[in-house]
């Protein structure tokens, strides 16, 4: 068994035009930044990107490589929290070239929970599920409705990405994965739902070196593993360094830290 791939470029080389790719993104933690960048360099078009959030942080690619760098290669986005570049440009006074591109994008919206449940339905081989979330809102449009035990539900369909990019902390050579903190995010869900799952990790160890009691994603859900170069883009050390650089910007601190204790205590 050999799931270890020598480079990010090779690990994404068979992703074709028109593929759907699921990527965890919710701020800094747990983003598979190297795979995102390799997919951009791979240059395929007509992609459908599936991500819990989109946009939201006005930071350069060197600080945090987000799924939004794939914008010019995409035809569709499936997400829950779409912070448009136009809105960010307004909020932070940052001019945006991406705002125009976003206007051309087909976007399918749903709640975070619905996105997770649709991915999980695909993972579990379900044909769909009924949920009360979204009833009476824009997300119910065009969906089958059904009353179960007197309550209204809408039918949601499974979502099975062709490829899933996963950021884990550690893998063994079989592909068993563990995560750290909230860097877990939806990575385990993406791993379970995707037809081909590619994981980038801080460290690859021998089978048996990870306590089987703490493995989060079992090897069956992982097809390819690529090691992030020590201290390289997206590694824990690199991400920490970049977060601290980001925090040194004065207008950033009040957004992601707390300033109000004094007033609050009065």
């Amino acid at each position, binding site marked *: 068994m050999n799931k270890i791939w020598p480079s990010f470029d090779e690990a994404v080389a068979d992703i074709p035009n028109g593929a759907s790719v699921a990527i965890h993104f919710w701020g800094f933690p747990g983003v598979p930044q190297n795979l995102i960048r390799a997919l951009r360099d791979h240059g395929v078009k007509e992609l459908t990107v599936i991500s819990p*959030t989109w946009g939201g942080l006005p930071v350069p690619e060197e600080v945090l490589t987000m799924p939004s760098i794939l914008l010019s290669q995409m035809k569709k986005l499936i997400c829950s929290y779409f912070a448009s570049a136009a809105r960010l440009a307004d909020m932070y006074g940052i001019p945006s070239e991406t705002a125009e591109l976003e206007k051309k994008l087909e976007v399918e919206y749903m709640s*975070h929970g619905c996105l997770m449940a649709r991915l999980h339905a695909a993972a579990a081989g379900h044909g769909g599920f009924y949920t009360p979330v979204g009833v*009476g809102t824009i997300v119910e449009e065009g969906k089958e409705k059904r009353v179960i035990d007197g309550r209204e539900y809408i039918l949601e369909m499974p979502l099975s990405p062709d490829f899933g990019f996963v950021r884990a902390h550690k893998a063994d050579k079989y592909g068993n994965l563990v995560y750290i903190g*909230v860097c877990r995010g939806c990575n385990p*869900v993406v791993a379970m739902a995707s037809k081909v799952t590619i994981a980038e990790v801080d460290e690859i160890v021998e089978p048996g070196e990870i306590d089987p009691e703490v493995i989060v994603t079992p090897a069956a859900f992982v097809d390819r593993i690529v090691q992030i170069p020590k201290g390289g883009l997206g590694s824990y050390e690199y991400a920490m360094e970049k977060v601290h650089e980001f925090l040194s910007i004065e207008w950033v601190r009040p957004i992601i830290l707390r300033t*109000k204790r004094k007033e609050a205590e009065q």
Partner: protein
Amino acid sequence: MKERLSEETIALRAAKEFQDGDCVNLGVGIPNLCALFVPEDRTVLFEAENGVLGYGPILLEDEVDKVDIRYVEAGARFFAPQEGMSFFDMGISFDMIRGGRLDITVLGAFQVSEKGDLANWGRPGDVSRTIGGGMDLAIGAKKVIVAMEHITKDGKPRILKECTYPLTGRACVNLIVTDIAVMEVTDRGLVLKEVAPGWTAEEVRALTEAKLIVAEDLKEIEL
């Protein structure tokens, strides 16, 4: 101009609803401040949609050295790790939320209707579609508290007969805490239960489009 409650005071009042042992999710803005006002002798576990239960206080500006990307809540703010917290993936997180395991969620809102409809993720015509986890929280949590300012910045009512903004969920709000009043959504309508110091029921009513039923035991908000 009569005095209105500050954002912190709104949060303080909303946090009085937290019971010992509750699992609670806080939305961004005023709701987030509730974490500072958990009543004494009560242990509350705060949940964040991105996959943590029981997280610690949000770090202060002068605690930059403690910042760690393992510890970020749903609003992208850094928190301190705390004993008894747990991490899980977002699938489990939203099962917890949608499956009714959260006792309370405190959310912000643009509008709430007298039937408890909630509109909190977008304005008509917005390019952004920031639905996020609000729909899941609004439908899944056992108790939904809205903490917000009673009227908009240009003086328009937010508590309406019908919401005009895109809905988050129908008939999902239980309690509304604003800078001038506390109202409960009941089967007979929206009941005004408490008013801010110095305010009368009539003055609150004048700033509310929804029909308000004044509780027989109407009282001043206790802080």
